[in-house]
């Protein structure tokens, strides 16, 4: 998709792909035939630039025709570079400005609780966003309101544009911080499906407080030449690179 678009964020999309897949195909109570079902679970992709991962999963889950996936980033395409709720209704909320998605997720969780709906809300945040003050304000609010229908998933790939996350203003010890904010906090391998399922099951069983899952991930996961290479944060592959990458992932252009 990022090859066709000539822009986009392949690295951060691949790091979160396993988590998105686990959510969209297993955990979320959603129905492609009734996308507006009020009792559905909500997924907020706060790191909106990982859009290709979510588009791909939602298309293959039946929410829209996978044929439009290659239109990513084209003028007039519903597939915006950062996920957009108005152009693609299967997206719960438009994101992109760092730190804002988690607050929206808190609002959605409050809404579900007020309405006594069984909906659960899952927010995927990036580690770069963990420097944004808004993320911490939203974490405060989620802890204060003891939102046990809220799950925060941190895509901890430790790489962002041009550098390792921890080489700048570091966010560690991040697990201690989440705990101090009142979250049941788990650390898992974000590419191990049984670990992801187990964490999500524990979150569902947790009452009286929200859950934070720190998913240790690899930027560019599954593509040998992209893995852990910060250069692939915001750079699309060439045709040759895209072909090699997809061959490694078991697909084709």
């Amino acid at each position, binding site marked *: 998709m990022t090859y066709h678009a000539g822009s986009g964020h392949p690295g951060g999309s691949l790091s979160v792909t396993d988590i998105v897949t686990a959510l969209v195909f297993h955990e979320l109570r959603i129905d492609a035939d009734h996308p507006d079902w*009020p009792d559905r679970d909500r997924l907020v992709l706060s790191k909106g630039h990982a859009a290709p991962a979510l588009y791909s999963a939602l298309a293959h889950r039946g929410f829209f025709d996978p044929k439009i996936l290659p239109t990513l980033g084209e003028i007039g395409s519903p597939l915006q570079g950062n996920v*957009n*709720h*108005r152009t693609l209704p299967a997206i*719960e*909320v*438009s*994101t*992109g*400005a760092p730190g*804002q*998605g*988690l*607050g*929206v*997720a*808190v*609002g*959605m*969780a*409050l*809404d*579900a609780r*007020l*309405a006594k709906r069984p909906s659960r809300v899952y927010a995927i945040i990036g580690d770069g966003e963990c420097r944004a003050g*808004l993320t911490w*304000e*939203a974490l*405060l*609010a989620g802890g204060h309101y003891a939102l046990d229908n809220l799950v925060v998933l941190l895509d901890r790939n430790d790489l962002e544009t041009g550098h390792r996350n921890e080489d700048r203003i570091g966010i560690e010890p991040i697990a201690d911080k989440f705990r101090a904010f009142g979250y049941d906090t788990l650390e898992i391998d974000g590419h191990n499906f049984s670990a992801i399922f187990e964490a999500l099951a524990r979150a569902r069983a947790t009452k009286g407080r929200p859950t934070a899952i720190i998913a240790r991930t690899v930027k560019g996961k599954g593509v040998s030449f992209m893995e852990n290479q910060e250069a692939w944060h915001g750079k699309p592959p060439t045709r040759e690179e895209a072909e090699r990458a997809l061959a490694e992932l078991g697909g084709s252009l």
Partner: protein
Amino acid sequence: MTERKSASLGEAYGQALVELGERDPFLVVLDADPSSSTRTAQFGKRFPERFFQVGGMDSTMMTIASGLALGGRPVYASGFAVFAAGQGYSAIRQSVCYNRANVKIVATHGGLLVGGDGAPYQMLEDIALMRSLPGMTVIVPGDGPTTRAAALAIASFDGPAYVRLTKENLPILTDGSFTLGRAAQLREGSDLTIVAIGAMLARALDVAEELHRAGVEARVLDFASIKPADEKALITAARETGAILTMEEHNVLTGLGTLVASVTATTSPVPVRQVGVPDLFGESGDPWKLLDHYGLSTKHALDEAWALLQVRGKVS
């Protein structure tokens, strides 16, 4: 100057909120003012489960409001204008407006009239910020009845809105027959038009009264509905009166005056003079004396009116 009965805009908003809460069981209210001086407390007392006090988190109030609204609820979010619109801007842009979320932002403490707290609390740029957001409705009521009417009017559509209120009590000038997108004519006249908002509305009427004593009849338009703007009323005023004076408690570079000038310039260019806060920050002081200090006095507006009339050749 005419003696008039004054009332609190915040109080009118607070009462309207309770009314709205009774009407719509899904409506929720958020408040980022830690002291609840934004008058949402009445709603909170009445509907505690639908009231969220998020004191000090103006930006996050906007993101949380968006999440609540996307579930189908009307959301009213209040705070001091300088923080709600200023600090909250990015969240209003991305999480509220870009999603077309049904969030009604009612900001209190707009303008210089905050007084003693000085520039950090005196919001003079919010009309510019909010008006430039696609899909945003912007209202600046000039009295209590219009505040109540505006609070109810924005509930009638699905989408974002920004209402700017003033901390000080303001004279009651209207019967609250506010209509979105319509300028209300508070005084008839054909020699000049004064277009005013907020606290400047009473001063506009005072200027018109002074002019009347000198034999000049000024039309006065209450332009509370900034966006959508009543372009027709402005063009009619330009054609019928030939000169326009604008009065606002906002940075004069980017508020009502520039709006009026740009609308009239296209189809019926007439001289427009703007009374507003110069391009600078305020300071601490007695609220009403601050207005005078920064050139928003009735006297200065009157001078501007005479200057316009001179340009038009209506006086020598």
